[in-house]
């Protein structure tokens, strides 16, 4: 009986520890979707989802050197900073296609922006830089 109790405690302890591991959220709403598209060349192609609870899901697709899904968690401070940056008004010029350059896509709320990352400025650039820093932290 003593031994069985010991085993039970060990199992509980090990499973409790794993609760700190970031998992794919099942019930948290997506707050931001951000992606980089294909180009004629070697552009990194990926998807990034940030959930309202701060969970980050990153899916590299091409020219990144890794495959699969990766998970992370933003701290409340970082999530607040991102929310504040998105809450500010920013204008996105109407999308005009340039053939073969990679399109960046940012969806949040009801907005769905497409743009070329090197031609943006102001608040959109700030948001874009925040998101790129998240991606580079993961990759």
């Amino acid at each position, binding site marked *: 009986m003593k031994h069985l109790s010991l085993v039970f405690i060990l199992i509980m302890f090990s499973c409790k520890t794993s609760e700190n591991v970031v998992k794919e959220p099942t019930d948290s709403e997506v707050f931001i979707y951000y992606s980089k598209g294909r180009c004629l060349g070697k552009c990194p192609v990926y998807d990034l989802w940030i959930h309202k609870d701060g969970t980050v899901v990153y899916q590299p697709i091409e020219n990144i050197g890794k495959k699969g899904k990766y998970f992370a968690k933003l701290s409340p401070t970082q999530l607040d900073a991102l929310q504040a940056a998105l809450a500010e008004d920013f204008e996105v010029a109407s999308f005009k296609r340039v053939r073969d350059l990679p399109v960046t896509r940012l969806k949040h709320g009801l907005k769905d922006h497409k743009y070329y990352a*090197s031609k943006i400025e102001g608040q959109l650039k700030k948001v874009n830089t925040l998101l790129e820093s998240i991606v580079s932290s993961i990759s």
Partner: protein
Amino acid sequence: MKSLQKLKLILILFFALTLSQSCDRDDLVDQFDFDDSGYAEYDDSDEDWPDDDFDNDSSDDDDSYDSEGSESRITAYSVSGTTITKSQDYNVSGQLKEAQDDVAKHQEIWELVKKIVPESYMSKMGEFEIYWGEADGSAGYVVEMNPDLSVWKMGIAIDYAYEGGFNADGELAHTIIHEFGHILTLDNTQLDSSISESNCQNYYPGEGCANKESYINQLHSRFWADIWSDFQSSQDSESGMQSFYSKHSDRFVTQYAATNPGEDIAEVFATFVTSSTNSNANTIASQKLQLMFDYSELIELRQFIRGNTSSARGRSYLPVAGSWKKANTIGNPKKGCVHRI
């Protein structure tokens, strides 16, 4: 008896540890590894979080047609006939400055453009730009300069043009043929930019409404119409588009061709030009190549480019069809080999 109890205890502990490890694995899924603790949280410090103070970016160009490349632009040339004249050196430093000063390389790239774009089509090119591709990974681009689609600008990434040596493996030639393919299939003889998407009865690639008999409208109606709803529903994410390609890979000459019909026809054109023979294969990808052979003017262009890029000594500037990076298959990527068609 005591040693038996000890053995039992060791066995129980062993099973407990095995169980605990499997428990960890179940929860980890695909955890990324920048934090050994298993809880991957970003550092709050300012070092890892971008500085707020970056609004002072100076974009020195307001060209309405130029939507990209402002941070990597090196030199702009105006095109007159078959000659380029420098119109602007952008404010660059470091390796971009070195690339800017090496005008012989700019000219060498232009000489290859001239081998690929016939003089009669040069009037469609208003500007030629040398830029640095590493910033976003692109090798080249085209964009219309005039709203009526009569004049276009072509950009070539000088770093990729010289990666492994000038036009290594014909990669640069492929880029130029692909970009020329865009001008050929999207200009004002093919599209009407005065017709909006909502009023367009044919395929609308973005730049304008395709004429009924245009190359791209033929390609779309014959090879895209039946998978159009599937294509549109894949546009939600890049992984969705990846799945779309995986599902329909036998329809495309390269993976990039599956991006949209505009990229498809440019890749088909590049494959059509670089292939040494016509394809007899029965795939939809091969049928798209056959479509090119249905147009005598495209066959003439093919002959012009192939004749101009091969020397009597057997040297060719062209890549083997389908051998370019990330484009090394025709139809089925699982075959993993280069197809000569």
